[in-house]
Structures are given as C-alpha cells and as structure tokens.
C-alpha cells in the first residue's frame, strides 16, 4: 500500500479541521472494508485517513421524534441488533445482514457504503425506500441531501472537499407499513448484487390498499436509483400482483444497466422486474403483519 | 506373441492395421522389429534413446516407468499413449 498519514479525531470539529488541513487529500475512514481494499489496489491514494469511528455524532443509533438517526460510522452489526430498526426499518436490516459476510458487517457502515457510492451498494436502495436523508457537515455548516440525490456516478457523490457525512436520518414509519430489500446474486452470500431492490409500502387500515410506496434500485444504472414513478403509480391501488407487475414494468423502464462479469444488461433488466414484484409482495406482507420468512440468497 | 497397438497417425505405415503381433521381449526389441517391417514407425514414437517427450508406453495394462527398457511378456499388449499426470 502507498504511504499515508492516519488521524483519529474524537470530535466532529476536530475531524472537520483535519479534513480542511489536508485540503482534499484526506478520506474519512469508517469500517474501511471498501476503502482499505481500494487503497491496496491503488484505486485511491489519499494522503491521510481520518478515522471517524471515535466521533460521537457518527456513532449515533437512536430514534427521536424526528425519526431514526444512523450515524455514518455505525457498523452493520449494530444496526441488525437494534430493536426499533428490526421492527420498523426492516429493509435496512435486510441490507445490513448481507453486506459482505459477518466479519465485514463487524466493520462496514451504512455511511461508508453510501460514501463509497458503488452502483451496487446493498444498503442504498433501502435508504432510498425508507426516505433517508444525509446530514453532511462541512466548513460552511451542515446541509441535508436526500439519499437518492447523494450519488452522482460510480464512486462519485455530492460531498465537497472538506465535507463529512455525519448521519442518515429517516422519518418515523407510519402505521401499516413494511419494507424489504433483496438482491439477486449468483451465490447465496458473499457477492455483489447483480440487481438489488429495496421497497417500503404504507397500506390503509384495511391492509388492502397501498397508500404510498417507494422503491430503490441498485446495480442497474451508474448510481442507485429511486424508481419514483413505479412507486407513485401504486398509491391508491390495491396491493396485489397486478399492481406489482405494473410497478415492475415502470421500474424496468428507468434502468440502464451494463453488461459485465456479474450479468448482462438484458438479464439485469429482466431481474429488475422480477425482484420489484417479489420485494413489494414481501413489504406488503410485513406491513400486514403476516408471517414472512426469507432466506438471504434464496 | 506380444501385440502392439499403433497410434492412428502411424497406422497407414502398417497397412492401416490397428494392432499387429510383433516378436520381442522388451519394448525396444519390439520397436526395432516394427521399424524393420514398417519403416518410419520408430520416428513417430522415439526421440534419441527414448520415447518422445510426453509419450508413455503401456504394457500388460500398466503404464511403464521403464520406457523402452520395459520387459514385455508373450501375451502382453503394448500401447503408446500420452503420458498421464494428475492434479
């Protein structure tokens, strides 16, 4: 690996000042499971790593009246153990359970997954579905960016030099809502999504009609996508396979996948539709409180 | 008498026969006799003092480590095959 400096600030102020001092040549280090590998491959050669794991604001995992706050450095293993997340933000748990293996989940954070800005990031579709908003701190203060607008290209995002993702916050989940994430991978674990779909639905009291739905897509475009229209056309519609198929069709229309070692363009378009339907079905089942078992990879 | 089987590429030298009986008590003797009767065969199978690289001789069902020195019994079959390795 190339030579670099390592800093371990204990406050946000200190972290921002270190970022500023390194003048765009530093990268924040959370779990490091992408970054360290990419540095070993020479893909990134930052002059310094700013380890953000000791900063309180980046380690928050709690709910308040505004909803759920997930600090950018919180590792997946903490998220999957958090009771409220398990009850209400299940898509996020689904994602965090399958990012890498268990060892990776001990380190990898959702914030890091987002900042790495890979098109196939497993948590991002769930963040989009759950209406996540990025809280970004920088020299000019704090700003908020919806997750679906955070990534701008493969490995690229809206963060400006000196800025740091502090947390992702989610609005409280309405009653009768449910969410799910799943992906298609050739193996059953330890793989990069060929297609990943996250969806959150809110039903009416009867559990038969969809009030609102949001669908996030991964690995089918240069960035994770918000399938806005696919979600919108479900609003007010019965929660049934006919509607799910309509949503799937709409989702297929907005994807622009590539052919690579993980799958062909045609395959990805096809599977986008398949997974949107399956994920909606599961999210609806969860919203209704129905028993729903799901084996990752199957 | 030992029966020697020819690789298909050499069969035209021996009138298209798949195998023929050939006297001899070692592979070397059998090959010498074969060459005498069907000139050109030896060049296909031998190089210098031994079998061509990558070639093995199978006598009486066993791949020989002795090559041309391998004794041949009166009822043995002699085959020339690619040397087998393994993983």
């Amino acid at each position, binding site marked *: 690996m190339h030579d670099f400096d390592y800093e371990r600030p204990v406050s946000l102020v200190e972290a921002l000042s270190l970022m500023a001092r390194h003048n765009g040549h530093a990268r924040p280090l959370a779990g490091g499971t992408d970054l360290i590998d990419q540095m070993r491959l020479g893909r990134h050669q930052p002059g310094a790593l700013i380890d953000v794991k000791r900063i309180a604001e980046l380690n928050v995992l709690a709910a308040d009246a505004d909803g759920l706050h997930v600090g950018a450095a919180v590792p997946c293993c903490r998220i999957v153990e958090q009771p409220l997340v398990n009850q209400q933000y299940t898509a996020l748990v689904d994602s965090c359970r399958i990012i890498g293996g268990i060892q990776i989940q001990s380190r990898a954070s959702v914030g890091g997954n987002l900042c790495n800005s890979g098109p196939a990031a497993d948590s991002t579709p769930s963040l989009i579905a759950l209406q996540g908003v990025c809280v970004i701190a920088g020299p000019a203060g704090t700003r908020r960016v919806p997750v679906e607008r955070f990534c701008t290209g493969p490995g690229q995002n809206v963060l400006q030099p000196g800025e740091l993702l502090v947390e992702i916050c989610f609005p409280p989940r309405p009653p009768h809502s449910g969410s799910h994430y799943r992906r298609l991978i050739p*193996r059953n674990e330890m793989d990069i999504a060929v297609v990943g779909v996250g969806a959150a639905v809110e039903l009416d009291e009867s559990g038969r009609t969809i009030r609102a739905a949001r669908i996030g897509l991964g690995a089918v475009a240069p960035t994770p996508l918000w399938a806005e229209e696919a979600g919108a056309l479900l609003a007010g519609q019965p929660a049934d396979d006919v509607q799910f198929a309509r949503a799937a069709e709409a989702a297929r229309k907005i994807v622009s996948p590539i052919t690579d070692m993980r799958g062909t363009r045609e395959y990805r378009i096809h599977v986008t539709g398949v997974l949107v339907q399956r994920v909606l079905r599961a999210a609806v089942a969860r919203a209704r409180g129905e028993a729903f078992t799901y084996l990752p990879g199957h | 008498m030992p029966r020697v089987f020819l690789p298909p590429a050499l069969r035209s030298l021996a009138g298209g026969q798949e195998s023929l009986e050939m006297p001899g008590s070692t592979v070397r003797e059998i090959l010498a006799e074969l060459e005498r009767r069907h000139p050109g065969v030896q060049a296909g199978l031998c190089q210098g003092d031994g079998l061509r690289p990558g070639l093995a001789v*199978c006598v009486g*069902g*066993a791949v020989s480590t002795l090559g041309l020195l391998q004794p041949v019994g009166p009822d043995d079959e002699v085959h020339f*095959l690619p040397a087998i390795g393994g993983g």
Partner: protein
Amino acid sequence: MATADKRPYKVIGTRPVRHDGADKVTGRAKYGGDMRLTGMLYGAMVRSPHAHARIVSIDTSQAEALPGVRAVVTSADMPAQGDRVVELGEGAANMRHLTANILARDKVLYRGHAVAAVAADNVHIAEQAARLVRVEYEVLQPVMNVLDAMRDDAPILNDDVRTESLGAAPQSPDQSRPTNIAKHFLFEKGDVAKGFAEADLVIEHEFDTAMVHQGYIEPHNATALWNTDGRITIWMSTQGSFTARQQTAELLRVPVSSVKVVPMEIGGGFGGKISVYLPPVAALLSRKTGRPVKLQMSRADVFEATGPTPGSHMRLKLGVTRDGRITAGEAWIAFDAGAYPGSPVGMACMCVFACYDVPHGRVEGFDVCVNKPRTNAYRAPGSTHVAFAIETIVDEICEKLGLDPLEFRLKNASREGTRRVDGPVFPRIGMVETVQAIRDSQHYQSPLAGPCRGRGVASGFWFNVGMKSSVTATVNLDGTVSLIEGSTDIGGTRTSIAMQLAETLGIAAEDVNPTVVDTDSIGYTDVTGGSRVTFATGIAAVEAARDIQRQMVQRAALLWDVDPAAVKYDDGRLLGPAGKQFTFKELAAEIHQTGGPIIGSGTSSSATQGGAFGTHCVDVEVDPETGKVQILRYTIAQDAGTAIHPSYVEGQMQGGVVQGIGWALNEEYWYDDRGTMRNATYLDYRLPTCYDVPMIETMIVEVPDPQHPYGVRGVGEVPICPPPAAIANAIYHAVGVRMRRLPMSPPNLLSEILQRFQD
C-alpha cells in the same frame, strides 16, 4: 456393494486423529507464507497489463534508485534455454516456454505475465518499486477463444510452435508457418461409420466450458537463499518438492543437487502447485542481494498468472440401439492451453468414453494456445470437461428412449476386460458398483416433489497415477516408528501413509510418527497429485514396514539363538519356537543390544492404478424467473478400492463435489475485449461458500485394486468429474432446458429458459 464387513484389518478403515492435526487447529503449522528468516527481503513482481504485447524496453533505473530497494531482475538474469525439452516429474516441458513463463523474454502472452521482480526491505517498498519499473510495450491483438485461435488468420502467440501429432512426426501441410495448434491427438477403435450405421438413435451436440481455477486458499509463495557456496535453498508450498527442485535447477541451469527444496505446509493445490513460478525469481534476487528473499503472490496474481484449467469447445456424438446399447461414439475436443502448449486435452480424449463400452470410437483433440495464463493440472485434468459432454448426452438418450439412466449405465458400463477407445483394456474396476450403489441409495429411491425441481445423475472416470515414491522408517526404543516421506501432505496423507505402515507392522497408527522432509533427506518422490499418494507412497510405506519386519525377525532370532527362518512376524508380534514371543514394543527395546538401529526403507515405481469411478445423484431447484439454481441434496458413490481413513476419503469426495458444483454453476474466467480477466478476486470468481451447498452424502464403494497390497485406489480426483453433468441433467428435469455451456450461471441459464418459452 463390496463393503468389507469382515475386513481383516485393525488399523485400515479406522479413523484416528491426524498426526499433524494439533498443529493445524492451533495455528502452529508453518505454511510457506509463514517463513521468516533473519535478514529476509520481500519481493514483488512486475506484471504485464496487456494480454498480448511485444516488450520494447524495460527501464529499472527508477525502481533501483528507490531507498530500500536491494535488487531488480528481469529475464536477462535468467539463463538462456535454447530448444530443450526436459522431463520434470509430471510430464515433459519445453524449457524455452517454461523460462519465458517465469519472466517474459520478448513478448508477454497474457495479462499478469511476469516481466520483472524487485527485492526490498519490506513488501510496501517492493510494491512501490515494482510500479516504478518502466516497461514499454507494443500492444498486439490478443486471441482469447480456442476456436478463434485455431483460425488461419489468428494472431500467433509463439513463433516456435508447430503442430505435433501423437505418434507422428510433424507433418501438417504447412509446417513452415507457426500456429497456435500445438498438439493434435487422435484415437480410433473399430469402425466408427459402421457403428453409427448400426445405431437407431444418434445424438450430437456442441459444448463449451469456461476456464476455471483450482482456487486453493493459500497463494503461491517461495523464500529462497542462494548461499555463497552456490547452494540454493527454497522454502515453499508445493505439491512436489522434487519436481520443484528439478524445475528450479533446470530453469537456473544449476545442478539439481545444488538446490534443496524444503516443503512447508501447503494450503491446497489441486494440481495448481506443481509448476514453479516464484522460486527461480526469488533465487535470482537472493543471489543479487546475498540475502534470503521471499515472494508471495496476491490473489489477483494467483488467478491471472498461475495455471488454471482450460476452457474448451467440444463436439460429441453418440449412437445407440433402440434398446439402449451404445454402438459408436465420436468426439472432437479443443482445449485452450493458455499461453504455452500443454493442456490436458490428451487425457480428456482418453477419458471421454472411459465409463462405457464403446465398440467403435474416434476421438480427436487439439491443444491450442490463447492469450490466457499457461494452464496446468486441476483435479482429474480434462476429465470434468468431457464428463459434462458425454454424461448429458447419455441423459438425453435415456430420456428419448424412455430408459432409466442408471440401468442404461449398467448396461453399457466399462468393466474388467472392456477395451478403451484409446486402446488398453480395463483391469478390475468399480464403475458398475458405483452405479448400483446410487441406484440402491435412499436418495435415488426417494421421490422428489415440488415445482421446478429435478434430479440428475452422472458418472465419471479418472485414471489415477502410480509414479515414484520413497519412504524410510526408523524403529524407536519405545516401540514407536518414525516415518520419513517426501510426499507433501495436502489433505491428511501423513496419516493414510502412517496407517498402512502401522497395519503392516501390527502397531497402532498413533505409534507411527510421520514427517515430510526436504529433498536432501529422502529418496525421490513424485508429486502429491494424480490421486497417487495413498496408493504409491502407501506401497513404499508397506515396503519399508516389510523391511523392518525382516530386520526384527533377525533380531529376535539373535536373542533366541535360533535360525531366522524359525521366527515368524505376525500382527505386531514375533513368534519363535517353543512359544517364544516378543511384542513389537518388547523387541524394540532391545535393538541397541542386538545390532543397533533398525531403519526400513521402501520405494514404489512400477505400480499402475486401475482407475477410479464415481456416480453422483443430485436434486436441484431452479428459480425459473432468475435462472438461479439451488442444490437441494447431493449423494456421491465412489470406488475407493479400500478406504484407509474413511473420514478423509469422504472428505476428498465431498470436497471434489463442491468444487464440481462451483465449476458447474458460477466459476469462470470472465474476460473483457482487451483480454483482461475482470473477476480476479474471490468475490467475483465465486467459489461456493458453505451457505451455497447442502451436506454431501457419501457412499464409499470398495472394489480393491489388486495392484496395491491393501487394495487402495486413489480418491482425490474423480469426485470433481460428474457434478457439472449431474447438475445439468437435474436442471433439465427441473425446467426442461438442456445446458451445454458452463458455467450454468443465472444469466446463462435464464437466457436458455427464456429462449425455450419463446420457441
């Protein structure tokens, strides 16, 4: 099934804890990568970013100027080889090709091809220096596909390659021009035209399989010290210390005796750790620096620059009568050898029809150079490819004729006396018994219910080799025996060898202490490969034990003052006249008073194995919307001859099956247009994880091999052969799609499924 319920053995067939086990579960065992020497330098390789290019120039000055860099070497430091072909233990090698593969000379022939190497104070400096070596390339058009490479207008890799035909002097029409077709094999039996004329049904298809890697978890490594006295010591992970020594000596053009290879523990090989890559380079760096130098590959290097097994294109045709008897078979097989000649296509040709009695057959094979790494052995080299082709065609025939696929196999199975298409006649073999075992298995007898589920069966064959082994064994005063061997232990063979020595001496397996030693400390021993160690090194151990028996008899005779002929060695006891008796331990205590040390030795060189067969049964479930396959249940029946340590026999069977599952479903070298492998990581290469597979049920069939004193057959390789075909057959029975391309990955399978519903 020929299971031995009244087996005469005391040690063989039991399951003792392996002798090296404690070291391996505590992290104490020293593997090649664990080598540390005082003053040791770390090396890094400079590798080609191009699949095919001419090297215009190499400038090492910047790298040499970096502080902490101690030496840089290129092919200019390697001795010239000229036109030499040398026997290297497992087959002959053209030294010109071999040396160019170690460090490229005028051309690079695949991405990852080594061009130069650096030694430095630590690995980070070495890697940085490697990036500072400036190599100017003239990029050439690569050719990646075997059929493309066979075309007349294909880019040519090696100017010195002309087509060589098995058993024929070079005679192609235009031998003045170089070609990528290095070898041509032809086997014929009977009259193929006549055979097909007798057939009521002829099925013919083409098949493609992707290049795949052995995938051992431990990367290649070598630590070398070129001492001031000219002696070279190499510490490394290798399947064969003696072939590693010979290759290194030939590549460096030094006497073989001046190289000592110390085999460290080895983290998997499967055929891929027979060829040397790093030792000569580490040795050259050591000579330049006067210090020990360690080289270790990255995982990407392992994928890109070692010896995977070829991709293939095959055309196969089989004719049968209405009642299901094979009348003729024909196969055309082309393997991509990688950058230099030497694919196992000859062996593939010999395996393709081996499971069956084919009265009329013709097999043609081609060894073809392409811009991929030089291929090497991988577990039953060549046999898995052809099993995929023949066994799926057999399944299709059975379906068309309404025959049970196992009954069809029983009807046509090779057995003792069957003449192979390549000529020889099979000795006693167990093909029939493995089919019967599966037919009678609980798995095959149970129904399989549910949508998109299917069951498939397939059989497979592998030769197993004999080759050469040496063993010495020393009797200790306490009645234990120290066993010295040269077979590197990849999967518990110390124990399977020790058990045969123990059985022969009539002592406990725990009373034998086996050690694998370096090339100066034991007689020549061939590679741990070809499923040969438990067979051939086992024979050597039995010989050594018999040698000890003879000496123990003489010592007892001396003590009893009787003629040695009056002493009998029986099951760990020495029996003399008039009820005189010693146990082995009792007599061992006396050896210093009766003439000194007792050392037994044994070798094996002439024994040929009878061959191994296996039959597999698998249930799958296919997701028809995504093309993804789940393995629900898997049973393997295999002829092990006599299972020495059943746990490790089962382990070989289970491990081979799961490698076969990986080959079947997801593993492949995925190249882009520029000839770059885009999935050179474990993440994207996708070996099966434990979450991808079920328990693998094993049925050990025992048809003893008469060539071995205890009837051992090698078990390591054949289990990898049937899985792709068995799974393909199961997929067909699940969703009605015949897969003729590997891997049967979700995108590949889905496209076939969608096509079927379009048609």
